[in-house]
């Protein structure tokens, strides 16, 4: 078979199918999303039946996969690093209770971070949970490690974590395909309540068993770090690297003529770290440089007096280890002068922004215009970009906005003074993920807040995974729908209104009524569902009314539309000193009309001259 050209996440998906995995579950999150998306795309390659699901959140995805493994079959669950925080509860206990069929947990970390609320290191989490973790250095290696992880998981009856990072997930490489295995396993759940339902009485024994497994694994030579030996010219010195840092350091050492001169180790399993290796380093090297992302996981396990890395400042303690950062670390470690490079990149470039025509922008503009003194807790998704419009004050973690709204409300209310309007925005997928318990809590805690659910009928940020009210399964087959309105009412909310933010007057009227409800004696939480499809959905874009937008000469050049509305299709013509429409970017939605204080932005029907 000829090589395939695969993104790291696709390579992992391919590995899952090749290994005879019969369940893949996930909640989408950058940089992990394409793993299960690719399992969907490659599903016809599977010989055994395969259940694929976009679960409502990571905890659920984990638990579904766990029970699949209890039946003796192979299961995989994928998430981004902060998703593991959500799945932490089942994850921690799984280490003690173990698994039957292989259970591979793929957790994609995001050093930098590029698309996350922090840059936590899941290898540290694996060590905390006492679960073995593999750290791939390339897409092809990530694919190979999937089979390795399944085999190890079944051998030890333990979950195994595969921890790629953004630069593995979103790199592409030629990957030689392997044959797809047919394991033909039939579900056979063996009841064993002292294990699967272990009460505290049984846990010390299970913990002892776990520690015994880890002791054996830390002496297992299959996972001893691999040495690319030097020629003795750099005696007593070595570089230890893991993940993408290994690949980047290899390219740099080669370019500097040092590959094959200096001893260079790749750590494939950072936890448990091979104990013989730790002893060897101490006995054979005076100085050791450790390159890993993002926390000092290997470094902290090396008991070595000549250790260089994050501890002694050779490696920066935060941010991504790019080739330039690693080059500087190598120079410091080897005592070479580091060329001061004049050509330093000027920042990160243009910031991202809501798409032209995005219904969230229309909703945000209405909210902040109506409540200029409001407090605006928001959440994780495309709509985080409401920050640019000044319509988002807090972003924390999935679902936090509603609970934060409650916290703000009670803090202000207990002062006995005027409570500012508290208007929370949360996306539809985020609402299903973690917003429902928070909404019940808000009702029960008598918070007087407006919750705007931004319903664009998709998980937009991560590339349009289906949401529970859409009625679509991961493979595109029909599924039951769970309407948001019903959920909101069932949570005890008495004010629920729904409409498109494209109809500005009606939308503002809804917001006013919602706010009035929060101020009535018997009022409480009010929910507004802002409903309009995401325009990345081509059908939505092509079927909605399209206006011909123009800026009239009455424009005063105040730039308020640029600052307050921030649509990429509204630009400023410096020569004419007024705003203008970029016809290449404008989708003709017409939602920018209210953004002009003097009415100079005009929407004409497309057909009009």
């Amino acid at each position, binding site marked *: 078979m000829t090589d395939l050209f695969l993104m790291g996440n696709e390579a992992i998906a391919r590995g899952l199918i090749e290994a005879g995995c019969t369940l893949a579950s996930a909640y989408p999150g950058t940089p992990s999303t394409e793993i299960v998306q690719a399992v969907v795309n490659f599903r016809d390659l599977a010989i055994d039946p395969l259940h694929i699901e976009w679960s409502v959140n990571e905890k659920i995805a984990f638990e579904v996969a766990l029970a699949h493994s209890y039946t003796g079959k192979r299961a995989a669950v994928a998430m981004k690093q902060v998703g593991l925080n959500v799945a932490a509860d089942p994850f921690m206990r799984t280490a003690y209770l173990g698994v039957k069929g292989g259970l591979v947990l793929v957790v994609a970390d995001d050093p930098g971070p590029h698309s996350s609320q922090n840059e936590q290191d899941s290898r540290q989490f694996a060590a905390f949970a006492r679960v073995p973790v593999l750290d791939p250095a390339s897409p092809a290696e990530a694919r190979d490690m999937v089979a390795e992880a399944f085999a190890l998981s079944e051998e030890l009856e333990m979950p195994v974590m595969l921890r790629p990072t953004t630069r593995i997930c979103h790199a592409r490489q*030629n990957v030689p395909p392997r044959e797809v295995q047919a394991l033909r396993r039939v579900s056979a759940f063996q009841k064993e309540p002292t294990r699967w339902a272990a009460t505290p009485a049984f846990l010390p024994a299970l913990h002892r068993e776990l520690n015994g497994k880890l002791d054996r694994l830390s002496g297992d030579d299959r996972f001893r770090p691999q040495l690319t030996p030097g020629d003795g010219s750099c005696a007593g010195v070595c570089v230890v690297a893991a993940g993408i840092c290994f690949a980047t350091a290899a390219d740099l050492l080669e370019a500097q003529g040092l590959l094959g001169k200096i001893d260079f180790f790749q750590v494939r399993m950072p936890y448990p770290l091979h104990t013989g290796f730790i002893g060897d380093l101490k006995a054979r090297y005076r100085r050791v440089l450790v390159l890993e992302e993002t926390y000092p996981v290997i470094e902290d396990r090396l008991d070595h007096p000549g250790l260089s890395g994050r501890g002694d400042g050779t490696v920066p303690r935060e941010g991504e280890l790019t*080739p330039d950062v690693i080059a500087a670390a190598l120079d410091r470690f080897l005592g070479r002068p580091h060329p001061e490079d004049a050509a330093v990149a000027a920042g990160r470039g*243009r*910031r*991202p922004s809501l798409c032209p025509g995005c219904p969230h922008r229309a909703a945000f503009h209405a909210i902040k215009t109506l409540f200029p003194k409001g407090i605006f807790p928001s959440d994780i998704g*495309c709509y985080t970009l409401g920050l640019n419009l000044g319509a988002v004050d807090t972003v924390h973690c999935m679902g936090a906005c509603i609970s934060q709204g409650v916290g703000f409300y009670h803090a202000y209310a207990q002062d006995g003074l005027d409570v500012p309007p508290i208007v929370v925005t949360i996306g539809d997928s985020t609402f299903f993920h973690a917003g429902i318990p928070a909404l019940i809590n808000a009702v029960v805690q008598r918070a007087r807040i407006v919750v705007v659910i931004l319903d664009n009928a998709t998980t937009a940020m991560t590339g349009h995974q289906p949401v529970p009210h859409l009625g679509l399964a991961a493979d595109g087959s029909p599924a039951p729908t769970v309407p948001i309105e019903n959920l909101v009412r069932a949570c005890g909310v008495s004010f629920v209104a729904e409409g498109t933010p494209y109809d500005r007057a009606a939308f503002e009227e809804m917001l006013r009524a919602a706010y009035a409800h929060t101020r009535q004696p018997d009022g409480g939480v009010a929910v507004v569902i802002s409903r309009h499809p995401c325009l990345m959905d081509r059908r939505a874009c092509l079927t909605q009314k399209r206006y011909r937008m123009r800026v009239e000469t009455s424009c005063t050049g105040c730039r308020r539309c640029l600052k307050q509305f921030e649509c990429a299709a509204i630009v400023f013509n410096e020569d004419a000193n007024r705003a203008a429409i970029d016809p290449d970017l404008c989708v003709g939605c017409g939602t920018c009309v209210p953004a002009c204080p003097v009415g100079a932005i005009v929407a004409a029907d497309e057909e009009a001259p």
Partner: protein
Amino acid sequence: MRQQIVISGLGGQGVLFLTRVIAESALRRGAAVLTAETHGMAQRGGSVLSTVKIGTFRSPLIARGTADLGLFLAAENLPVHGPLLREGAALVVAAAEPGAYRAVDAAAVARELGAPVLANLVVLGAAVADDLLCVGRDEVEETIRVLSPPKLVEGNLTAFRRGLALAGSR
């Protein structure tokens, strides 16, 4: 065959597609290829960067001052991603105005073709015509055919050929 390429643009300009076309064209020549791409939030109109490394590399990332070729779909990204280029690197920029690079008025051509997003393939055509890539016209055309959705094949090929026709028109 060994080449390090930087592809820079704004989310929505088709940087990912351009990256794949170049990478898979090199694969047709039997080369080993690594790419790194920007996904996630930055794709919403922000600055995005792809790198393509053709030849025996292990990391998809490019160190500062080492890239052989830059294809910029947005001139405003030059201060951000330009430092990745080595001295003497070839540089093609989608720009209406001339500059210290090969300027290609890709937006004008793409608008003429009725789809502003085609500017990416116009730039690629110009770079291939100037022989700046280690892949040729035939491999690129074949790759565009394979990677494009059936309805877009002809439009994409037209954009690429319009770029080719800009050869030497600097």
